[in-house]
């Protein structure tokens, strides 16, 4: 029974973190209908940013959060204006974005290997607080709790942005229907660029927490993080950023239970869930219709 509770609690904590991992991808897709296949690599960059700050400046890696928000907002603007207007005019922007961002992922990974080399890098858990805290009589690493709390706060900000600010309303309008939003006078490109910046920043912030939740980092973790993000987003619903929380928690709990009881099948979990959801309720557990024919 103990193991059950341990799996449950860690599942929820990891789930909140996973929600942060997926929410950036979901936002970008919802607003621009573009699939950011480089999402995992942006997470990787965020993780390396935190490692750099910890290693070279010798301060707590959490300080990288504000720095990375600024950096990746700027990067997001660049990425938007460089790619999206051109892509939107083409015949099949969704599919082409898939491939474009794959190219971006390769470039990012190659540059990261040049900059950081191939070896694993780690940040000790102690920077987020020593030892463990007891929840429901289970010893949980303190670092997990902190990561989950930070993730929750960040997601909270996004919720506030989307539902309680003018720009957020505009963003949701664009997510609902781009043409209608434009006809009402919303500056689609400015808001979308902003959304791109937010999306990439969210990925980077997930990256800051990644060394504590996922383990040591190296430039090649990008692609598996991307596939994981897809699973999370699809489970919740593609296009509904808040639904990602549900997706994250389901994913987290499933992973932890698998690891506890059927360890060698752990990798299968995200994909089976993803396929089942896409076949049974393709809009995701919280989404609207996306069936084709």
């Amino acid at each position, binding site marked *: 029974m103990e193991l059950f509770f341990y799996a449950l609690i860690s599942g929820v904590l990891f789930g909140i973190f996973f929600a942060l991992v997926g929410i950036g991808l979901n936002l970008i897709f919802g607003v621009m209908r573009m699939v950011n296949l480089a999402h995992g690599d942006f997470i990787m960059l965020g993780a390396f940013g935190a490692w750099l700050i910890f290693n070279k400046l010798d301060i707590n890696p959490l300080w990288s959060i504000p720095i990375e928000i600024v950096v990746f907002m700027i990067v997001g603007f660049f990425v938007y204006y460089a790619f999206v207007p051109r892509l939107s005019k083409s015949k099949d922007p969704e599919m082409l974005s898939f491939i474009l961002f794959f190219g971006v992922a390769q470039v990012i990974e190659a540059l990261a290997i040049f900059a950081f080399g191939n070896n694993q890098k780690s940040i000790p858990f102690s920077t987020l607080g020593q030892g463990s805290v007891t929840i429901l009589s289970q010893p949980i690493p303190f670092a997990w709790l902190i990561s989950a709390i930070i993730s929750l706060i960040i997601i909270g900000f996004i919720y506030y942005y989307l539902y309680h600010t003018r720009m957020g309303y505009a963003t949701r309008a664009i997510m609902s229907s781009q043409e209608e939003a434009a006809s009402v006078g919303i500056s689609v490109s400015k808001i979308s660029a902003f959304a791109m910046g937010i999306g990439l920043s969210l990925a980077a912030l997930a990256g800051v927490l990644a060394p504590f939740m996922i383990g040591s980092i190296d430039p090649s973790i990008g692609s598996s993080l991307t596939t994981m993000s897809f699973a999370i987003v699809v489970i919740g619903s593609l296009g509904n950023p808040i639904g990602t929380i549900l997706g994250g928690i389901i994913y987290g709990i499933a992973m932890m239970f698998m690891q506890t009881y059927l360890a060698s099948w752990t990798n299968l979990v995200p994909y*089976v869930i993803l396929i089942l959801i896409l076949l049974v309720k393709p809009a995701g557990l919280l989404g609207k219709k996306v069936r084709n024919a």
Partner: protein
Amino acid sequence: MHKKNIRLINGILLIVVTIVLFAILPKIYNNNYLLFNLMLYIALSEGLNLIYGFTGYLPFGYVGFFGTGAYSASLLILLLHVGVIPAILLGGVAASVVGIILTPLLRLSGAYFAIANLAASQAIYYIISNPHLENITQGPYGIMLSSVYNAAASYNAMLLVLFFALVLVLFFRQSRFGLSLLSIKEDSITASVAGVNVVLARTIAWLLSAFVAGLCGGVFAWYTSVFYPETVFSLNISIFAIVFVLFGGASTLIGPLVGTVILYGMYNFIGISTPQYFQLIYGILIILLVLFLPDGVISLFKKVRKYVP
């Protein structure tokens, strides 16, 4: 009719020249592995073309069919002692069976389909490589097929599979069936109103595409004779095929061929002399391609001559 015959002859000529080239080259140029891989990727790209070029669905997990074919053929040879050629053919069939199981995915649109297909191929990979199934699939230990190793025969088998794939694409290109597929790609509702059986046509293209990949997998297993699960389920295989098709130009016969020869040739050349820059160059190339030449290199030729084979 006259125009159509000329186009047909152009296509046939292209296929014949390609096959003859690959048949003769081993005598002159010694690196058989490179030639084999080139043929493999041309065949895979054309197989992918069948579904992406003609129906617009992008199977991001195309490698799943490839791996299924490789494993089915290998296990038939190792465990049931089936002959090599029947085993490879059955490998192709096995891939089609997986395709049948995955047909519900065709209901999904664009990005969803791609992701679901990716998930399916990863799922197959994890199932096959799991230690619990080791007694059947050899699990993480991989496959050793050295008992049936035959470099020359397996090279020729690849030649045949390549021929088959090229002929299929030519057929799609020339026939009414192919035309109906293109109409579905443009606008499926109008096509069905015009009398095209959308679901059936798409399914046929899908299964044929899977069959080609399965055959490729089987022949690859024969030629390489030693491989781990990661080798035949590697996402890189899907991605290469997709990029080659895009670069060359989808829904044509010559597009994927040109795309593969140029890009895979580049991969071998740059990859060997300056490997550290390879990934960077490849990535930049893909970005430029999508931004400036989304219809592939062949689209440049289309501006000069309206039709390419």
